[in-house]
């Protein structure tokens, strides 16, 4: 994908074009952030879920720099110890993640390695779907885990229910109302100013009392038009010194920051990391290529967002998810096929960071899970601890993750 636009006016187009360029990954979602508001218990964090769609290669993001089997399996694409940003004796960060190192040093960034689901399907679609619902593949619960969390915590009537930028991810599917939009500035019906009020009233009248998913979306849209007009009509100014890079992912994060900093009760935001992580071919060397470029975009945007949150970061938890990792051995195309275990990154003021969590299973042939990194931590252990300790959901864990009782890793205060 080549950037076509240089300014924010074009950003929505690029958002959509960018969503189209994801290449071979799962689910229905387009690349855009999505935010949910609801009445919240006091003192719960803003949750930001970033999806690395397509199955991100955890061994590239957080290379096991002390593991000789890693280098044997990846002769062309491994991150060598001299290239990695050292985390501890065993692990490093991909050099493109350098913008996040300040957060590691300030102990606001934690890494969980060898994390995955319990099903081990290598289907993007199955794995994404189950992970977004937070259940095992065999469980047909239709709602997303974030939706269940919001509902179980309690939605306060009259509070603005939900807001999003782009198509809704499966994590939010369910009864908690939500809004998706491409950018705050575009949140308007494009009619002459004098006709706006009666046009919106007409739309309200024609959808009033009508059933079905479209009618629900229509009413939520009209509700959002009304409630968010003040934010829409102001140009967002990030904190002094913060400059978001000019790309879709960063723009999405800036929209989340705009709403979060407006102090109108943003509870949850979700968006997709840039591009596709489905790197079957041409993953590239650590110093250049697909993984290098995409991780750089990810890290620069995320760092700008975290800086922009400023003091709000103390009440914010950011977590990355991906449906699976990649095969340990590289394939004949300089890429890696679908695998199982991967990594999650957790950031925020309430995180006990500066540590790599999880048990390393090793990468010797006998230690692998069908050729893959064997998950030793269920992704719900990580999310469950966040739900219990940071998101006011300690009493509703069973509703949020019915198939798995989370074991805490001690990564959240």
């Amino acid at each position: 994908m080549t950037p076509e636009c240089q300014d924010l006016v074009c950003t929505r187009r690029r958002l959509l074009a960018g969503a189209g360029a994801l290449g071979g990954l799962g689910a229905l979602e387009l690349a855009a952030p999505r935010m949910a508001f609801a009445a919240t218990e006091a003192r719960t964090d803003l949750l930001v879920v970033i999806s690395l769609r397509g199955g991100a290669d955890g061994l590239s993001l957080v290379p096991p720099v002390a593991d000789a089997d890693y280098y044997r399996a990846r002769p062309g694409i491994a991150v060598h110890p001299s290239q990695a940003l050292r985390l501890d004796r065993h692990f490093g960060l991909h050099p493109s993640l350098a913008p996040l190192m300040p957060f590691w040093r300030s102990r606001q960034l934690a890494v969980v390695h060898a994390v995955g689901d319990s099903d081990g399907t290598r289907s993007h679609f199955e794995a994404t779907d189950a992970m977004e619902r937070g259940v095992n593949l065999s469980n047909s619960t239709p709602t997303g885990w974030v939706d269940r969390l919001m509902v179980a915590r309690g939605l306060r009537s009259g509070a603005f229910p939900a807001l999003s930028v782009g198509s809704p991810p499966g994590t939010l599917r369910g009864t908690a109302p939500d809004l998706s939009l491409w950018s705050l500035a575009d949140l308007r019906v494009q009619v002459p100013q004098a006709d706006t009020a009666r046009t919106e009233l007409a739309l309200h009248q024609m959808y009033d009392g009508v059933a079905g998913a479209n009618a629900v979306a229509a009413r939520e849209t009209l509700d959002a038009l009304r409630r968010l007009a003040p934010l829409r009509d102001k140009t967002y100014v990030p904190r002094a010194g913060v400059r978001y890079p000019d790309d879709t992912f960063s723009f999405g994060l800036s929209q989340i920051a705009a709403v979060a900093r407006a102090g109108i009760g943003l509870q949850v935001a979700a968006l997709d990391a840039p591009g596709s992580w489905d790197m079957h071919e041409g993953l590239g060397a650590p110093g250049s290529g697909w993984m290098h470029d995409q991780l750089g975009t990810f890290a620069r945007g995320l760092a700008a967002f975290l800086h922009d949150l400023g003091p709000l970061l103390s009440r914010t938890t950011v977590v990355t998810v991906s449906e699976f990792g990649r095969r340990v051995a590289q394939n004949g195309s300089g890429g890696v096929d679908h695998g199982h275990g991967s990594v999650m990154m957790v950031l925020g003021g309430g995180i006990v960071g500066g540590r790599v969590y999880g048990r390393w299973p090793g990468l010797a042939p006998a230690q692998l899970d069908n050729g893959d990194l064997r998950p030793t931590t269920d992704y719900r252990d990580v999310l469950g601890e966040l739900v219990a300790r940071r998101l006011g959901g300690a009493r509703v864990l069973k509703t949020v993750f019915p198939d798995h009782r989370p074991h805490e890793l001690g990564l959240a205060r």
Partner: protein
Amino acid sequence: MPVEPSRRALLTTAVGGAVAGAAVVASARAEAAAPVATDPVLHAVRRLSYGATPSLVAHVRQVGVSAWVDQQLSGSPDVSATLHGTGLASLPLPPEQAAMAMNAVQHYGITDLQAQTFARAAFGDNQLYELLVELFSNHLSIYGPTFPAYKAVDDSQVIRKNVLGTFADMLAASAQSPAMLLYLNQAYSSGDNPNENYARELLELHTVGADGGYHQRDVHQAALTLTGLTVEPDTGVFQYRPEWHHVGPVRVMGWSHPNADRDRGLDVALSLIAYLAHHPRTAQRIATKVVRRLVSDSPPPSLVASSAAVYRANGTAIVPVVKHVISSREFQQSAGQKSQRPFEWFAQCVRVLGLTPSPDLAANGGAVVEALRELGQAPFAWSPPNGYPDTAVAYASTATMLARWNAAQALVHGSIAGLGKPDVTTLLGTPAPATAGACVDRLALVLLGIRPRAALKRAVLTGAGLTAGRVLTPTQAQSAALPMAALLLSSPEALVR
């Protein structure tokens, strides 16, 4: 289609039909599904076309649904006829030009193919054919922008060529389509270094499905079986490279082959493809997709089962399955069970507004494609290989809803380049309705084929700032018609397919 009678005569016919057949279901109190006209012809035309124009409804009313379906699915339609006058007709790439296309890949953008696809849906007579092309193009989904010229060849040689034939032939063509082999990384898969991406999606998405009873070992064996299917780098055409083919016994689900001869590897691969195309689980999946497309977001299991049986009894032929579904009781009783996805909703709006392509649609195709992209459903722009979803809920986001409302405004005001402006005089008829209320009635009939329920009529009048009884001069009626039309196309009724 026969020469069109005058629009006015057609509308009279349509009125009769709609009034006679329309049991408009709506409730002002309890939540009701979006009101649906149960007129069977209107239902069939909505479901099987990209927009029930008064003229098409009248035509189908005249010849009957099944005769129209037969005509739509007979022989190879002249698809280029649709494109004359748009500047798009010269764009399709014949297969022998694939090599040139590859070399000129920077000069052939996906926008051309996207605009062509839209033009055929919005302006063409081969409505049901185009609908099936879209269905199978989406089943064997390829993200277009990466290899646009290859996708153009794939569109004509894999999908259009076979959609009135058998799925087995289509799948075999797809397995030899450079666009697919490049998209799913098959082109560089070899016996020494197999790449599983295409093999996995062939099983999971194109044929038996994730619950089809295969395991990782089957995926790997399929990947080995398919090694050697690649793209000739200099010409950009399909090539089988024996030296890349894995030799030795292979087994995938219930299929196996000694696979001893490197030079016969393509036959072995095609044998696997044929096995998969004929597999009962594939029959079930194709049947499910056809039923979901034509009947309901929740396909009735009995209709899926009988459709799968038709698929198998006819050697994977697609048309018999489609006709079986259309003639079913479930189809006839399914009015209101499907929503317009953004692409078909946009095409419908263009059709019922009577918009015509400007002569330079090819040059301006970008504006139409941009509009479709903002709606979230530009052709060939879905990046994962599972294709655009075919359920209402997948598109029921607030972002998409707002995009629809704004697109309706843009279409009515003629502000999308390449699509012209609506002819308000024709929309209103002659003489123009004398009151605001009559204007809404008239426009609802032309644009939606129905008489508006009371709440809809009241809403549209609110939006126009008029009362029902307000007397309008023809000039006033024309200026009121634009906001009225945009609101009608934004209504729940306009989303019913």
